C-alpha cells in the first residue's frame, strides 16, 4: 500500500501533533510495521512536555518486540519526581544511527521546532515531518483551526488523518472528519500520506479512501493513562 522502500534507502519520519492527537500510537505502529518488514528500527521519544505518560511505560514491551527505543525508562528517573522533562542524550544523536528512525515529537507550542534538538534534523534531506490530525480534537475541529494549527507547527511535509473518538468512533465520524482534513491539505498543498483507523474497525471501511491508503492501527497507549 505504500511506495516500496528501495534497498539501502532508509525511513526517517517525525510525527508531530496536538496533545492526544495519536502521534505516539502512530509512531509505534509505524515503527512496528517497518520492523515487520525485517528492517532495523529505532523509535525515539522526543516528547519533552509530558514524557512520563507516553512511551516510557511501554519501553519493556516494545523492546521485547525487537524495537530499539530511545527513551528514559522510569527507573532512570529515580528520585527525580515531577514528570521528568528530560531529554535522553541519545535522542540528540538519533539520526546518526543506522536503520530506520521514527521520531515521536511531543505536543506543544514549539511543534516541529523540537527537531532542533536532534542533530542534523534540519539539514537532513531524508527526514519527513508528518502532522497527525484528529478532527475530533477540539483544537483541530474545523477547517480554519486545522489550517492555523498546521501552519503554526512549522515544517510539515505530510499529513496523517487520524480522526477518531476512542471507543465512540463510528465510520461517519472518521469519514466526515477526514474529508475536512483533506480539504485543508489540498488548500495548503500538503499531501495526506495515509489515514489511520483502529484495527477494531477493520472491514467497516475500505483499504483506501479517495486514493489515500488506510492503515489499521493497534492501540498500545493504555486508556487509563489519559
Amino acid at each position, binding site marked *: 500500500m505504500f511506495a516500496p522502500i528501495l534497498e539501502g534507502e532508509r525511513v526517517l519520519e517525525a510525527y508531530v501533533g496536538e496533545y492526544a492527537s495519536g502521534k505516539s500510537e502512530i509512531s509505534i505502529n509505524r515503527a512496528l510495521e517497518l520492523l515487520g518488514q525485517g528492517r532495523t528500527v529505532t523509535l525515539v521519544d522526543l516528547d519533552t512536555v509530558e514524557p512520563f505518560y507516553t512511551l516510557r511505560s511501554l519501553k519493556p514491551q516494545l523492546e521485547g518486540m525487537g524495537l530499539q527505543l530511545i527513551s528514559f525508562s522510569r527507573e532512570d528517573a529515580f528520585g527525580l519526581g515531577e514528570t521528568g522533562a528530560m531529554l535522553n542524550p541519545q535522542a540528540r544523536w538519533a539520526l546518526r544511527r543506522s536503520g530506520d528512525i521514527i521520531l515521536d515529537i511531543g505536543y506543544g507550542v514549539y511543534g516541529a521546532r523540537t527537531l*532542533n534538538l536532534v542533530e542534523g534534523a534540519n539539514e537532513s534531506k531524508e527526514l519527513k515531518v508528518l502532522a497527525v490530525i484528529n478532527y475530533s480534537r477540539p483544537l483541530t475541529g474545523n477547517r480554519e483551526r486545522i489550517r492555523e494549527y498546521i501552519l503554526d507547527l512549522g515544517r510539515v511535509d505530510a499529513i496523517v488523518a487520524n480522526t477518531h473518538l476512542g471507543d465512540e468512533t463510528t465510520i461517519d465520524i472518521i469519514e466526515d472528519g477526514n474529508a475536512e482534513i483533506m480539504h485543508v491539505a489540498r488548500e495548503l498543498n500538503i499531501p495526506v500520506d495515509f489515514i489511520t483507523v483502529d484495527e477494531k474497525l477493520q472491514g467497516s471501511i475500505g483499504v483506501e479512501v479517495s486514493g489515500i491508503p488506510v492503515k489499521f492501527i493497534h492501540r498500545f497507549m493504555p486508556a487509563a493513562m489519559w
Partner: protein
Amino acid sequence: MAMLEPVHPLTPKSWYLPSKPHKFCPGCGHGIVLKALGENIDELGIQDKTIFGCDIGCSLLAWNFFACDSTQTHHGRTTPVMVGIKRSRPELITVGYMGDGGGYSIGSQHLLNAAVRNEKVTLILVNNTNYGMTGGQMAPTTLPGQKTETSPYGRDPEQTGYPTKGPEFIAQLTPDSAYVARATVSKYNQLKRFIRNALRNQIEGNGFSFVEVLSTCPTNWRTNAQQTWRFLEDEMEPYFPVGELKSPFGKGDK
C-alpha cells in the same frame, strides 16, 4: 578498527560518581554550574561540612550529584530548610540550589526575607527563563515575547509583567556584608569565581550570599546548539546584566 579507550572526563572530587552520568539534558547549563560549585567545594576544602539542598524542578536532578550530605525539600522551600540547618549548626556550609520558579515565584517570600535577615546561607539560583522539569511553562524570568507552554503567544508584559531581576532586587534588601551576583554559564571562569565568593562569604560568616546563574534549556527552548548559545548571549545576557552587584571582597566585577 581498534576499540577506543573510553574517555574519563576530569570530575571534581566532591562529585558523587555513582550518580554519573547525570540526568540533565544535552546542552543544559546545570552541569556547568554544578561543576563550578564542585571545583569550589574541592578548592575550599569544605566537602565534609557542606550541606547541599535541592529545590523541586530541574535542580532536583542534582539531589545526589555531590558526595556531600544532601537533602531534598519542597518546591520553593529550600531556603527555609537551609536557614533552619544553618541556624542550628553554624559550622556547616549550607548551599541551596534552586531554579527561577522555586526562588522567584513560589519561594519568593523566603528568598526575600532570608535576604533581609542576612541569613548566612549560600543560594544558587539557575535562571533558564522557564519551568524546565514540568515541561516548559512560563517562569518569572521568561523574557518579553518568549513562547512557553503557558505563554503560547509569547509573554505579554501587559498581562504578566516583566521578568524578575533577582540580584538587583536582593542587592537592595541586603547589608554590605552580603554577596550578590549574576553569572552566566557562557563565562565559566567568572561563574566559578562568583560561586567561590558566595561560598567564602558564608565561610567567613559575613552574611547572605546569592548567585543567579543564566543558563540554557535547549530541550524546552527547542533550540539547536547554535540557537541555544545565541539565546543565552544575545537575548538573556543583555536583559539580565552579568556581574557582582554587592561584594564584601572589594570592587564589584562587572
